[in-house]
Structures are given as structure tokens and as C-alpha cells.
């Protein structure tokens, strides 16, 4: 081999980046579980594998990048598990009346679970010593995509409700602290 000093440094850098890439399945394997849950809810849909692939790409990229982005992967999954699982717990025929309108409980659970996820992500982001914004963005993206698999049961309205609930939970709480570590 006997490389020159420059090429050795370059090879070492490449080895490091490849090593980081080999490290990513430790974070991205959970996407298989999320896609499996999604596939059980929406059998035969073409959207599940496409969104699953996007989630896999995103988690791989974040895990490879590391630091706050890498640390955001698992909190993102865990926060996203709330809207992924809670809406499906409601009985399909359960409805309630709000403001003279009949709402499916399943639809109503999406903003609620989004709110819980948003609050959880904001709380975890505030605990970070540095890189809070990347952490918040990364975890919110993963939680959003993960939760969408669950809230898609309630249609577009469910997904939008989950996003609104998430923003309602995360943004004010986070901005209230003026991002001191961002």
C-alpha cells in the first residue's frame, strides 16, 4: 500500500464516512416495523412503500450525518409512535358532536396525538446542549412521517390535524425559550 501522507488522510476520511454509513442500520431498522404497521392498516396501497422508502432514506441520512441529526432519529420514532398507534385504538363507529358537527373519534385523536408528540419533541429538544434546531427539525420530520402512517386512517383531515397538533405542541413551547442553545 504505502500511501503518501495526503492520500492516506483522504483514505482515512473515506474509511470514516463508510464506517458511519455501515453504522446507520442500527438506527434505520425501525422503519421496517413502521412500514409493517402501515401495510397492515392500508393493505395493497402503493403509498406505504414509497413513504417508507423516504423515511428509510431520511433516517439513514440523519444517522450518517450524526450529532444532533443523529440523536434526533429515535426521539422522532418514539414521538411518531403516538399518532401511529393511538388513532387506531378508537372504535371505527365511534363519533362525537362538536359545534353541531359529527366527528369521528379517530379524526379527533390525530390532532391530540400530534400535540403529545409535538410537546415531547420540544421537551427533548430543550434538553440538548447544542444543535437544538437540527434536533427539533429532524425529530419532527421523522415523527411526522411515522405518525402519518397512523393518521392516514382518518384521511387527509387526520394527517393535517396531526400536523396542526404537532405544531401547536412544539413551536410555542420551543420559541418561548428563545432557542438559547440553537
Amino acid at each position, binding site marked *: *500500500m*504505502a*500511501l503518501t501522507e495526503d492520500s*492516506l*488522510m483522504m*483514505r*482515512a*476520511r473515506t*474509511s*470514516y464516512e*463508510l*464506517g*458511519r454509513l*455501515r*453504522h446507520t442500520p442500527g438506527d434505520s431498522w425501525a422503519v421496517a416495523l413502521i412500514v409493517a404497521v402501515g401495510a397492515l392498516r392500508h393493505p395493497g396501497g402503493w403509498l406505504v412503500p414509497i413513504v417508507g422508502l423516504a423515511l428509510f432514506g431520511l433516517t439513514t441520512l440523519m444517522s*450518517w*450525518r*450524526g*450529532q444532533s*441529526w*443523529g440523536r434526533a432519529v429515535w426521539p422522532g420514532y418514539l414521538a411518531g409512535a403516538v399518532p401511529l398507534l393511538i388513532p387506531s385504538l378508537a372504535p371505527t363507529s365511534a363519533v362525537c358532536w362538536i359545534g353541531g358537527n359529527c366527528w369521528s373519534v379517530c379524526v379527533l385523536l390525530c390532532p391530540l396525538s400530534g400535540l403529545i408528540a409535538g410537546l415531547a419533541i420540544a421537551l427533548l429538544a430543550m434538553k440538548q446542549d447544542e444543535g437544538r434546531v437540527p434536533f427539533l427539525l429532524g425529530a419532527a420530520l421523522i415523527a411526522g412521517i411515522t405518525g402519518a402512517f397512523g393518521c392516514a386512517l382518518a384521511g387527509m383531515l387526520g394527517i393535517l390535524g396531526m400536523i396542526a397538533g404537532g405544531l401547536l405542541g412544539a413551536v410555542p413551547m420551543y420559541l418561548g425559550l428563545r432557542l438559547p442553545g440553537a
Partner: protein
Amino acid sequence: MDSAARAQLHRNMVSLADGNRSAFSPVYRALWPVLRAFVARHLPPPDSEDVAQEALLKVFARASNFDPERDALTWAVGIAAFEVRTARKRTERRREEFGERVRQKPMDSPEQSLVDRDLEAAALEILGTLRPLDIETLQTVLKSGSPSVARATFRKRVERSLKRLKLAWRMRHGAD
């Protein structure tokens, strides 16, 4: 490497394992001379440079899996020690292929070979953490070579080196 530089290397390695690319150059600058010197002490010049480079590349390939609880220098030297062992085996195999006389070792059971191999790797790892003078002294004893200093001085040095080796072993493995 003094203790401050060693602690700095450890901090940089932890940072690199987390994905901080700016820690790459400091880790590279700190590790390369150490690994190069370590390998050069155990292998002859034509092979030592190649093996040291391979060891360095392996250290960076595994940097993401670095456990912050471990000492960075000991960890890196452990990888280099493994590379030295592999290179020696490779050379031995090459010698056998060319029909050179190879000292025959008595056949051990597979379990015994495994234990011996682990012990050898652990000993090399510990040896790498000692001071160069200690390593030189112990190598002279192992090779039954003649010391370059007065016999009484050498005896004293051997005693001290063994003491440090035992201490390092105990700190690393918790037993003699």
C-alpha cells in the same frame, strides 16, 4: 503521549464518534505518529509502514462504534496490535509457502488455541500502553538479548517494567 494529549485525543475521538467531522484532523494528527511508532517497534521496516496505514484506516472505519467508556489511545493501539498479529501470521504463511523452515509449535486443542490467541492480543494491547523504554526492556528479555546497559541497571529496569506491565494489566482486566 502525555496524559493531557491523551485526554484531548479521547475527547476528540468521542466527538468524532458522534459525527463531528471537525474532530477528524486532530484525531488523525494525534494517532498517526503513535500507531506508526507502535507498529515499527513490532515489525521490520518494509512491512511496518503498510501495516500502520492499514491499522489507521481500520481505526477510522470503526470510529463510529467507539465506546466513550474506553480509552481512545488503548482502543486504537489494540486495533494496531491486532493488525501486527495478522501481518505476522501472513508473513509466516508466506514463509511456509516458500518452503522455509518454520518452527513447529506443539498442537493445542482448539479451546487452548483460542485462549492463547486472546491472551496474546490482550498482552499486545497492554504492551502498547507502556513507555517505549519499558517495551524495549521487555523485548530484550523476551528475545534473551544482551542489554545495552550495566547488568544491575538492566535488572532494575526489568523489575520496574514488569511492575508497570502488571499494573496496566490489572487496571485493564482486573486480575493478574
